[in-house]
């Protein structure tokens, strides 16, 4: 049985997480750094979940300790503070998952994260919902299709023309159902990522955009017709009050370091200019905007095989609490 250690100073939060995880794993808990260090000595912990700000030494200190002494132990963070403040740390310490502590946090989000990290079974939007979520994966043609209530429909996209047509129809449909208008931007960013930026040849060169590294520029081709091996899928639907957009490509060319890099360039402010370094170009701005406007954005990547990007938009205005969810296999 896999062993999990939860470190959190608030008794009720710690106990709730432990109770849920104890159903399937051997769960340990500690209320501060020193207690955690003791448990780590006696138990071979597979996954550490730690709060960041605790009395005494912080969760970041604990991660440094684990990285140094227990290289096989996986680690993730939970925090009640703005996760954006920790993107830099995440980048430096290879933290790919941070869960926000707030009153609308679904405990399932934690158990799904734990399952994905421990099993490597990372793909699939259905993990985040009850069993009654319907997924229509039949993929009939490029026409728009209304998703089943409490369900998602997947569509294959083969060209710029299809992307434009479907994006418009999906956006219109979801907005009619009450999604925020900004969902159009999410669709635009996710589909352009899957269509223009994801396809690479064996040498890792972009297939549908011109790269001018000397001038730090990317110019996408016009009127793209994807070759059959490069088709990607978009999934869309509504489950209760959650609007769902998923893209799946066959490349797995998005790198997790790259995601943090891109986010970091837009979140962190250059101290001399007062601006984020990302403001002068367009690298990563789309990704940053997607994360800002959605409630959750989850990246699932199998290197060189496939990438799945899942976004959830709720209408509950909890925009200040965002997870960092990047899974790679």
């Amino acid at each position, binding site marked *: 049985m896999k062993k999990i250690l939860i470190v959190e*100073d*608030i*008794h*009720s*939060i710690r*106990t*709730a*997480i432990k*109770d*849920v995880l104890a*159903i399937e794993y051997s769960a340990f808990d500690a*209320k*501060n750094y*020193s207690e955690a260090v003791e448990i780590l000595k006696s138990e071979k912990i597979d996954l550490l979940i730690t709060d960041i*700000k605790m*009395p*005494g030494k912080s969760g970041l200190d604990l991660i440094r300790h684990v990285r140094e002494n227990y290289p096989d132990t996986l680690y993730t963070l939970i925090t*009640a*503070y703005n996760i954006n403040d920790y993107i830099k740390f995440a980048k430096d310490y290879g933290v790919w998952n941070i869960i926000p*502590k*707030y*009153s*609308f*946090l*679904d*405990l399932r989000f934690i158990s799904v994260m734990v399952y994905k990290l421990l099993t490597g079974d990372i793909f699939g939007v259905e993990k985040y919902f009850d069993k009654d979520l319907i997924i229509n994966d039949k993929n009939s043609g490029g026409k728009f299709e209304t998703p089943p209530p409490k369900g998602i429909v997947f569509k294959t996209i083969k060209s710029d023309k299809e992307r434009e047509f479907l994006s418009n129809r999906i956006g219109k449909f979801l907005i009619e159902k009450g999604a925020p208008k900004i969902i159009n931007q999410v669709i635009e960013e996710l589909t352009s990522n899957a269509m223009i930026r994801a396809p690479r040849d064996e040498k890792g060169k972009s297939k549908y955009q011109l790269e001018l590294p000397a001038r730090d520029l990317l110019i996408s081709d016009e009127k793209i017709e994807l070759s059959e091996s490069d088709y990607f899928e978009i999934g869309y639907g509504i489950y209760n009050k959650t609007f769902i957009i998923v893209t799946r490509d066959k490349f797995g060319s998005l790198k997790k370091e790259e995601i943090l890099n891109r986010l970091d360039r837009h979140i962190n402010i250059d101290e001399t200019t007062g601006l984020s370094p990302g403001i002068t170009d367009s690298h990563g701005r789309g990704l940053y905007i997607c994360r800002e406007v959605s409630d959750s954005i989850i990246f699932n990547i199998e290197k060189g095989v496939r990438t799945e990007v899942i976004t959830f938009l709720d209408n509950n205005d909890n925009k200040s609490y965002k997870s960092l969810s990047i899974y790679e296999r």
Partner: protein
Amino acid sequence: MLQQNSSPGVQLTFSSLADEKIKELQAIIDGITEPLILIDQNFDIKRVNQATLNFTGETAYKDLTKQKCYTKLYGRENICPYCPFLNYKVEQSDYSDFFDLNSFPVPELKREVLFKFDGKNQNLNLSFFPLISKDGKIYSFVEKVSNITKIKEKEEENLRMRNLASLGIMISGVAHELNNPLTGISLTVQNLVNNLSHFAPELILNRLDLIQKDLARAALIVSDIISFAKPERSKYTLADLVEVIYKAKETVQRLYPDLSKNVTWDINADDEFIFYFNPFKIERLFLNLFRNSLQAFDYAKGYIRVDVKKKKNSTVVTIEDNAGGIPDVVLDKIFDPFFSNRKEGTGTGLGLSICHSIVKDHNGKINVKSTDDRTKFSISIPTIKSQTRK
């Protein structure tokens, strides 16, 4: 020969050289954009500048000279009630009430007044500079009128902005402080719903107790805010101060079991302390002080020592801890509302400010000393033995 001077409203009988000097002087005072008035001991205007004409709405200097200053400048029939020379007597020889004539330069006298003109109330700052004769008598004075309305407005605006900023800091602190227990309650409820069928009753009771504790924390934050926003007069009852201190200690130990684990308590009282005070507020006072101490310890080992002593008409409680002390730079700010030395976003910054107002409400005193790693709060409150206060 009497000669009418061309511009200033003062009649002169000097030579043309003196006349030239007078013109120069007038040009200089006209160059000052604030009203400047030379007034004699009978409150008659002797000389004014151009700005005074604008201020009074007159067009010629002669319309002002030899007129009473209070009439022409402020439209009054009698000497202005705030005038520093209100009680001035011509025959008076001791001016120490007005000015310290021995100091040089003679300090100016200032009055800040509200005066309505241009259709609205304006803030005027009036400065008075005395002219002293050889025999040490004030024979006239210069009044300068500065309109500080804009500066005042700016100041008020700044104060409002500062208050708003403090409010913002407090709100984000409150939001964060409430977020923790709310998250705890939310996750515990989810947990109970998921596990209701197979949890043993005592396990369920234990989880419910966790909710109860989170609720107590949230309630404490809310009552902090309420008592800050709406301080009420205390209701005094006969109570045992030492008992109240023990109660506060037990409450913080219950709320912060981990933080208080390494802290030893030492409560000493040299007598019985049963008198009239508000036991709820006083418990709150000690609760806040103890909580601050515990949070300062941050799991470290240490002691909290409480001494209760009788003074003549008051009871003095000292609370000392060795949790690290308070830096000098913040020591004078700790009783300010919204001030918090903790990490950004934690705490409401109201704790010690509430302590301060509770003590004040009991007509008592609170002060703080900090040396090395020790902090010592002393609270003195009157020992009221009979209920006289309404």
